[in-house]
């Protein structure tokens, strides 16, 4: 307990947190009124008054259906789809005499199809249910009375229960903090799941209850909390705690929200106030938007188009039918007497031919329903589920370290993955691992550190490739550095010159000593000593600060203790002896984004006053003393080098202060600190400004904001594929730019358009306090910067130079306003890379929406935190990174992957495949149904449009379900135009999806045309060949049954072989399904024909007896097959040879065996790289180009 208390003091000393004690004012007067009626009887949830209130339990439900509502609700969902509704109508009509076929044969496929979809729904809901069970059965310690706490399931918690939550546990409901393991009853909360912020939030219990920090103290605890009703606002809370006769105010400061996690605190006690669906996080949860892919939307249009065709055909048919029916009675005499027009039903009544025609129209609608693939939707759903399984199973996207495979959470966006035009990426946790590594430093003008960054590694890798003989300068020591895994987190520094105390032998040893000492002192971190091992770890505000302290420690300056007024280190003196030193800490001038530096003022053991300062180069160099600029040139050079390598740099400097100056400063500083007004910050800044001058430069540090593995390579590939990558980050502009360099999104020589609102004039305006004037000025400046940017864009387009756009959050606010956003977007689209910094979650979502709606292209958002949720939901596809903790992003994403680099495979391989599969599948689906449907229509011409189908009822209804569906599913699940290796080798292939060449209207219409053509050939060949003459040796003539079976055989052959012809990938599965489909037809024909004639009706023994022994049947099948496929075959032979598409080119390359010829492949690939492309390949190109030019200039 003592340790904890001490630590608390330290925190309050350093942070000076404004932990606002709640007070009764403002909203608290509302308590008890409307909207503030909730009363909680703490520790007494079973009492009479509490039971009157009947608050909901803590069971959280995420399922869509319950057992009772499943059938009505999911059926309703199913029939909301136009196509399904149409089939339902057909099924109902099938029971009337209108029906051209028997009811059962028509209903069965519908039942199968709807049943399959509902089964899928049920399974999905069952999974959600299991997840619910898991969450609801988590356990927490709950007070059982008499001071005994026992494990209880979350769902059994009631309002008013006292719970004890331990370190790293999630809060089971919304709680009011009563006390914690800390003396002052504070606790740290991680709210990453709620708002995505990684920093810990501090909460503090009311004073009145802070002493209740043991189990037993709750034995007799009774209190009443009155507070607001459940609402969705995360940041407000109003309530009061009635303890005895005293009232204590409650504010958000005491509220612990479900979904957040207790950190750095051993345990807390809290009282449950909101449970289950009343909790703020559940109240906040919105129905995730249901997303549909563009391909599917277009598919709907085709379905409607087919509906239109269907209606037109039906109208034509019914008109002709009406005319012919009317003519059945001529002046009271029957013409077609064999139809008995004198004694007829309404359906064929010549006297009321118009009515008959209208009814016939309905019949025709049913008959031609085979134009609309009933099984299309369900097949697509099955296919997509299987595709997602493949995505989930892909070992190349499996992250072994965290045991996390890729997970496609929604399967209906698979093909959209193949059409992504713009990727909007979060930075922290997505591109980077959110860990900093001290990797290089420049001390006294000498650069230390051999570590190489991901970027350098990538560039060096390029160097090894045959195209790259010209680049020489980067990464001299590539070979020496054998991937030594950093043994210490945050430290990846290798340089024997200063490690292990060797720095003593360096020329500027004294500077190095000061440098390292500064690293060890100038920070706000707190050491934590592990009592067992004695090892020290540090808790720091930011990971880069931790990296500095760790680096200092590793280099011999170990910071081990911080008290209120002192910092203690083990350090080396110049003679190499390890000594223990303590520095008297006087002031900390904290870091702020405007100051961009921090300083500490301290007195060393000799009694000298020192100011140690570290900060960004932009502010530091101007503060150097004249005599402190010894190494400026060198250092600047190094900093530039580091920055280009994507490192985050800080300049370190110090000065000695006179006693008098300090006294004067301290007075002013204390005064400024105690001011309670809006300009307190400014006053502090002003005072600090005065003392942070005349600094003496020591050197610079370079910290790597560690990129995730493979990020530069991945970005490079994606860029080569022609995908635009935008980075939307909440980080500072400098950091964002650094990462831009690290990922090769930015490079030297790229023109940067920076839109920044933090100009001095704007600041001045803001100080003046006139809000409208400020806004106007901001907007004007943003507008101006945008138009300047456009100018630059135009000029650089002529010189074919790449431009990068960097926007800060404030400017973004104005740039996203309605009248500006178009021109902003125009600028942004023209730029090779776009980086938005300091953007709020909402802005991220807005930018995403802007890109999505204005350009109409497919956007993919990728992020890991809750602050990305808006963006993920807004984008066409949201990809969540599941690598780290915090599942919020994953839960709202469509696809979760463990690492950013898997995006490459997800898009270029799976996305491309899925897009190709689904689009060919849909085209083929329409083809096969049109081919089938039109034979039915053509037949009607010969059957006076009476609605008699040429095929047996069961042939009709099993067409979609049986004989032709499996090959399509095989196509949709297994087809590959190009192997995954080649997909990755030729990223440009991805353009096929972006340009939507495989699902363009032209292509769709071509397939429709092909379908009509096939139907025409099949039908007319059949009726010509099977005319009135005998069709076999025995003199038998063909009849309806024989013709139907023959024509159907032809259709089955043609559509299946058309499939075989249009794919270029056959595994045994394809063979099995395609040829199996045909064999299945014969088997069915025989089996069905062998059944009792009652069942088989017109198909009775038609194959065995009539067709099979007839030579003409077989010859006709062969002829029709070849004749129907010949046009397509000729077309594709010519197209592939003379106008190949990109995937076909790659197929050529593969079949020629040239895919392993690197130079040839490069030639094919190279053409894709534009000057505006980003990524290290382009960077390399640009570099080699400019060096070549330089070489020419020199000559």
């Amino acid at each position, binding site marked *: 307990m003592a340790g904890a208390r001490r630590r608390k003091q330290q925190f309050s000393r350093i942070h000076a947190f404004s932990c606002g004690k709640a007070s009764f004012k403002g909203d608290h007067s509302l308590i008890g009124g409307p909207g503030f009626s909730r009363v909680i009887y703490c520790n007494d949830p079973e009492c009479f008054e509490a039971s009157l209130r009947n608050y909901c339990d803590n069971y959280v439900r995420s399922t869509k259906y319950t057992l009772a509502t499943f059938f009505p609700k999911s059926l309703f969902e199913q029939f909301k789809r136009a196509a399904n509704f149409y089939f339902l109508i057909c099924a109902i009509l099938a029971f009337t005499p209108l029906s051209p076929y028997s009811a059962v044969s028509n209903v069965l496929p519908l039942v199968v199809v709807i049943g399959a979809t509902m089964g899928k729904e049920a399974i999905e809901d069952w999974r959600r249910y299991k997840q619910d069970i898991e969450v609801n059965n988590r356990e927490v310690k709950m007070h059982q009375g008499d001071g005994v706490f026992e494990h209880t399931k979350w769902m059994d918690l009631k309002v008013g229960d006292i719970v004890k939550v331990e370190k790293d546990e999630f809060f089971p409901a919304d709680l009011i903090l009563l006390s914690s393991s800390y003396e002052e009853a504070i606790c740290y909360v991680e709210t990453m799941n709620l708002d995505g912020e990684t920093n810990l939030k501090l909460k503090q219990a009311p004073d009145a209850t802070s002493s209740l920090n043991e189990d037993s103290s709750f034995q007799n605890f009774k209190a009443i909390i009155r507070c607001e009703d459940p609402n969705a606002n995360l940041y407000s809370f109003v309530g009061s705690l009635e303890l005895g006769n005293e009232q204590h105010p409650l504010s958000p400061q005491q509220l612990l929200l479900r979904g957040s996690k207790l950190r750095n605190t051993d345990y807390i006690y809290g009282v449950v106030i909101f449970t289950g669906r009343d909790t703020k996080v559940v109240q906040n949860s919105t129905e995730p938007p249901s997303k549909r892919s563009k391909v599917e939307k277009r598919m709907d249009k085709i379905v409607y188009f087919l509906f239109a065709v269907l209606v037109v055909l039906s109208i034509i048919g019914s008109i002709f039918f009406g005319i012919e029916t009317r003519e059945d009675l001529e002046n009271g005499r029957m013409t077609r007497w064999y139809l008995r027009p004198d004694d007829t039903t309404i359906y064929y009544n010549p006297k009321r031919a118009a009515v008959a025609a209208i009814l016939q129209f309905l019949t025709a609608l049913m008959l031609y329903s085979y134009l609309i693939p009933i099984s299309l939707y369900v097949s697509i759903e099955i296919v997509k589920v299987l595709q997602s399984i493949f995505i989930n199973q892909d070992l190349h996207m499996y992250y072994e370290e965290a045991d996390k495979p890729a997970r496609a959470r929604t399967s209906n966006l698979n093909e959209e993955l193949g059409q992504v035009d713009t990727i909007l990426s979060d930075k922290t946790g997505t591109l980077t691992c959110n860990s900093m590594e001290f990797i290089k430093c420049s001390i006294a003008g000498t650069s230390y550190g051999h570590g190489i960054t991901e970027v350098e590694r990538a560039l060096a890798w390029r160097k090894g490739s045959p195209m790259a003989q010209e680049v020489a300068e980067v990464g001299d020591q590539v070979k020496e550095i054998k991937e030594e895994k950093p043994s210490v987190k945050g430290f990846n520094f290798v340089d024997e010159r200063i490690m292990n105390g060797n720095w003593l032998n360096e020329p500027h040893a004294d500077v190095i000593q000061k440098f390292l000492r500064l690293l060890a002192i100038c920070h706000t971190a707190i050491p934590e000593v592990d009592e067992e091992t004695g090892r020290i770890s540090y808790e720091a505000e930011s990971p880069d600060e931790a990296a500095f302290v760790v680096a200092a420690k590793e280099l011999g300056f170990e910071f081990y203790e911080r008290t209120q007024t002192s910092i203690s280190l083990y350090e080396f003196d110049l003679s190499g002896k390890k000594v223990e030193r303590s520095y008297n800490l006087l002031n900390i001038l904290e870091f702020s984004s405007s100051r961009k530096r921090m300083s500490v003022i301290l007195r060393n053991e000799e009694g000298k006053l020192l100011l140690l300062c570290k900060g960004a180069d932009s502010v530091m160099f101007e503060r150097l003393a004249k005599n402190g600029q010894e190494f400026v040139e060198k250092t600047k050079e190094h900093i530039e080098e580091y920055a280009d390598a994507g490192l985050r740099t800080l300049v370190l400097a110090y000065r000695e202060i006179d006693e008098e100056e300090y006294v004067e400063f301290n007075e002013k500083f204390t005064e400024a600190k105690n001011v309670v007004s809006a300009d307190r910050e400014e006053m502090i800044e002003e005072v600090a400004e005065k003392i942070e001058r005349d600094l003496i430069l020591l050197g610079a540090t370079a910290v790597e904001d560690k990129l995730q593995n493979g990020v530069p390579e991945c970005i490079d590939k994606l860029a080569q594929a022609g995908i635009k990558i935008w980075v939307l980050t909440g980080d500072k502009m400098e950091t964002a730019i650094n990462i831009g360099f690290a990922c090769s999104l930015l490079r030297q020589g790229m023109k940067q358009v920076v839109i920044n609102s933090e100009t001095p004039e704007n600041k001045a305006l803001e100080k003046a306090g006139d809000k409208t004037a400020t806004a106007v000025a901001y907007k004007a400046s943003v507008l101006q910067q945008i138009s300047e940017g456009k100018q630059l864009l135009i000029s650089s387009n002529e010189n074919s130079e790449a431009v990068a756009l960097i926007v800060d959050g404030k400017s973004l606010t104005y740039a996203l306003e309605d009248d500006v956003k178009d021109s902003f977007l125009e600028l942004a689209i023209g730029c090779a890379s776009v980086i938005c910094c300091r953007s709020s979650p909402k802005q991220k979502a807005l930018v995403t929406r802007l890109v999505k709606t204005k350009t109409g292209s497919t956007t993919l958002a990728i992020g890991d935190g809750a602050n990305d949720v808006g963006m993920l939901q807004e984008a066409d596809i949201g990809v969540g990174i599941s690598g780290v903790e915090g599942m919020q992003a994953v839960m709202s994403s469509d696809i979760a992957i463990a690492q950013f680099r898997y995006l490459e495979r997800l898009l270029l391989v799976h996305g491309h495949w899925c897009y190709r599969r689904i689009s060919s599948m849909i085209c083929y689906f329409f083809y096969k149904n049109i081919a089938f449907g039109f034979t039915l229509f053509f037949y009607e011409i010969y059957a006076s449009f009476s609605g008699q189908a040429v095929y047996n009822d069961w042939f009709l209804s099993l067409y979609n379900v049986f004989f032709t569906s499996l090959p399509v599913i095989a196509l949709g699940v297994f087809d590959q135009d190009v192997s995954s290796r080649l997909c990755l080798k030729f990223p440009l292939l991805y353009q096929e999806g972006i340009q939507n060449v495989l699902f363009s209207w032209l292509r769709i219409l071509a397939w429709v045309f092909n379908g009509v053509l096939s139907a025409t050939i099949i039908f007319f060949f059949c009726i010509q060949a099977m005319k009135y003459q005998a069709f076999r040796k025995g003199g038998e003539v063909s009849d309806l049954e024989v013709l139907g079976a023959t024509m159907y055989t032809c259709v089955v052959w043609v559509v299946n072989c058309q499939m075989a012809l249009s794919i270029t990938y056959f595994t045994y*599965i394809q063979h099995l399904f395609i040829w199996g489909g045909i064999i299945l037809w014969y088997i069915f024909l025989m089996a069905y024909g062998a059944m009792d004639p009652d069942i088989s009706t017109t198909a009775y023994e038609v194959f065995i007896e009539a067709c099979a022994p007839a030579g003409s049947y077989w010859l006709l099948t062969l002829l029709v097959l070849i004749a129907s496929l010949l046009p397509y075959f000729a077309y594709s032979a010519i197209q592939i040879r003379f106008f190949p598409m990109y995937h076909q080119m790659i197929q050529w390359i593969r079949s020629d065996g040239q895919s392993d010829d690197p130079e040839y492949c490069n030639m094919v690939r190279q053409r894709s790289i534009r000057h505006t492309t980003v990524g290290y390949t382009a960077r390399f190109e640009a570099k080699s180009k400019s060096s070549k030019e330089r070489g020419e200039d020199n000559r």
Partner: protein
Amino acid sequence: MADMNRERHRTRETAFYLFTQQSLPACKPVLTPGWVITIFLFMGLIFIPVGLITLRASHSVVEIVDRYDTECVPEAFRIDKISYIQDDSIPKNCSRFMKVHKYMKAPIYIYYQLDNYYQNHRRYVKSRSDKQLLHGQKYHDTSSCQPVELNNGQPIVPCGLIAWSLFNDSFTFIRERAELKVNRKNIAWKSDRDHKFGKNVHPFNFQNGTLIGGGKLNPKVPLSDQEDLIVWMRTSALPSFRKLYGRIKEDLDADDVIVVNLMNNYNTYSFGGKKKLVLSTSSWLGGKNDFLGHACVIIGSSSLILAIVFTLLHLKYRRPYGDTSYLPWSRKSLSG
């Protein structure tokens, strides 16, 4: 043993692995010019001979067609054929002469052909009861037979429009004064006779209504032996159709003249249908129809032409396969 098991287990595992990783061994044919030309040539070389053989078969068939619907109406009645055919008092017999122009080898098939007769009309096709045909009067639910279901409250067997409109022209053939023997057995499909038309079902109450459609049936003969009816009940697919009437078991020589005595009973005049009598031999492909042969030859020759055209184009326009500059998007969007 255990080793083998393990071995098998491992292969299954790798197969599964390859499956889940979507890298199953696959055949990936590419339509190289070589293949294209080969396939075209192959198709040409297959289909032209097949077409020629088919044509030969078709040409080997001798067919005599005689349209008699107009000729068999006496001149006086030609203005109003309908009242002629509906007037039972006028004798309907008629003689036709058919000249055999080429030697016809037995069996010679006799067909009657009707044109513009919609046996495939939905109302017509549905108007029958398969169960009644098989089980006779025992089967009562004959609502599908509307409007020829009942007469005077008694069921009609066989019911329905199809049976009611049974074709009833009859033919006898005389060559050189001697009657040619016409075998009228086995003209229907065996499956129909055995399984669709009852052996113990006799016509009942048939053609007793006010409106008489077509032919009558001998109530003594069970349906399974009423082959004319069985043939007629197999509805035709198209509005022009032939139905088998019988077979002549004797060869006919060229220049034989056959006298056909027929009863012109059936009314096709109301709807302008034609009636024809056809004598035909058959080949292995059936009757005379050049379509298959012509189509085969045409497909075959167009394949050959395509092969030649493709070869020429291939030789003329050479360019590397991997030249991306021809891609549509290289031309537009990416060039900027």
